[in-house]
């Protein structure tokens, strides 16, 4: 286990060290002490390493992640795992606004609640939230899956393209062009796999599925160039 004390060593050292790990590194387990809400912890990683953050972080923790597993033993500020490409980010506590925004791949697990705009413009990422998500979650989502074991706030899936949204609890309101959709066997299979990956004991049958009605401008062939 490699340990970096953020207070003693500084953010630049921390990220430079983690980013310089190559795919074949033997230093696969890292621990970050004293995050104290600092921003941009463990961003831009590109190696199959495991990073444990011992406490809560500020903005953009685990942003742009590839391959790495980042586990935050606390809560995170806005923009956690923003633009993640692959790998896994796990948050034990709550996440603030736009968790997993624009993520292309990988898995983001939030064991507490997520705030507004969770999964905004998601492009392939899978986001599994044990608690609730706030308003405008999955706004303009393009691909990937958002699983919400609790409730969703207003305007869920506003202007959504092709992502799949699974919500177990209530949905305060659906955004433009987002509708409830039939839960077919393949969705139950997919959801079971996502729930298992997210460490949730919820049953797929308890969820409802939402997605795009495909009625907005870009779905209308008359608007094609």
């Amino acid at each position, binding site marked *: 286990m490699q340990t970096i004390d953020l207070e003693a060593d500084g953010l630049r050292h921390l990220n430079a060290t983690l980013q310089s790990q190559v795919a074949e590194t033997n230093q696969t387990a890292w621990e970050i002490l004293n995050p104290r809400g600092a921003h941009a912890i463990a961003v831009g990683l590109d190696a199959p390493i495991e990073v444990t953050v011992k406490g809560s972080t*500020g*903005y953009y923790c685990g942003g742009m992640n590839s391959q790495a597993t980042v586990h935050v033993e606390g*809560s995170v*500020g806005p923009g956690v795992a923003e633009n993640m490409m692959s790998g896994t980010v796990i948050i034990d506590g*709550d996440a*603030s*606004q736009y968790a997993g925004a624009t993520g292309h791949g990988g898995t983001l697990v939030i064991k507490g609640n997520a705030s507004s705009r969770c999964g905004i413009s998601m492009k392939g990422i899978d986001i599994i939230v044990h608690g609730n998500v706030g308003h405008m979650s999955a706004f303009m989502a393009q691909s990937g899956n958002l699983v919400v074991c609790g409730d969703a706030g207003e305007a869920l899936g506003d202007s959504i393209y092709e992502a799949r949204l699974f919500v177990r609890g209530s949905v305060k309101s659906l955004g433009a062009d987002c509708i409830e959709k039939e839960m077919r066997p393949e969705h139950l299979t997919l959801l079971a796999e996502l729930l298992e990956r997210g460490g949730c004991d919820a049953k797929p049958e308890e969820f409802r599925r939402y997605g795009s009605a495909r009625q907005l401008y870009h779905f209308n062939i008359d608007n094609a160039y």
Partner: protein
Amino acid sequence: MCGIVGLFLKDESLAPQLGEMLTDMLVTMTDRGPDSAGIAIYGDETPGMAKLTVQSPDPARDFAGLDTDLGAAIGAEVTMSVRDTHAVLTLPAPLLDEARSTLRSLRPDLRSMSRGSRIEIYKEVGLPRDVAARFDLRSMGGSHGIGHTRMATESAVTTMGAHPFNTGMDQCLVHNGSLSNHNALRRKLRRLGVEIETENDTEVGAAYLTWRMQQGASLGEALESALADLDGFYTFVVGTEDGFGVLRDPIACKPAVMAETDQYVAFGSEYRALVNLPGLDNARIWEPEPATVYFWTRNGMRTREAA
């Protein structure tokens, strides 16, 4: 961006440390707002007396003999306590309005920062650390306080453009965000006779709340109506003589984190503003919901014996 902090003590034994805790929170928020900083602090009250905090661009000139001169003009004893460019004048509460208008002729360059029985507002341009040092904010005690680090967006970097804004007796407000309809609202409020001194958007928000409360609304009702009448982005933190409140606009783009323990309620634009508070690891920590008014009052606790 701007940074906001607030601390409302439930445990009176922390009162002597209020300034210290709040200053740490404020300085942590420097990179959200390095242009100016300000703090409103609710401290001791003398029954029957009011506090008027004033600022001078030339303290040596304006504060010399000010207590004597003002006292003679209004026919009462006035005491003065000077901190850098600010002075707190304590005088009989019924004479407050008279004192304010007298000051305009007595010391025309003085600017009013706050008025109330307990509130004192200190604000200046410069880095929060330097502003805190100039006023020795760390030494101040009290029951609650709010602070602001400003990144100027809608108006010039001046003392008067700094937050908090005093919105009525013992009331104040800090703001993170920007209001998009402040010019129209300023014109409307001025037509209605509301005094607005700067081109700052937040002062319009503050003046709006004062106006609503002058019409009979409670602070809570005024904040509720702000949701309908203020356009733009805002997280407001407000202070009253015995209370502390938070409001975010319905879109809630501007960040906010709250923490509550048996000893205090704290607000920060970011979690890291809170990390030095005692017992934070066991605090209830959450993000306030959009378009929801949060408010705490002393609720029968003794509020007037703060250090």
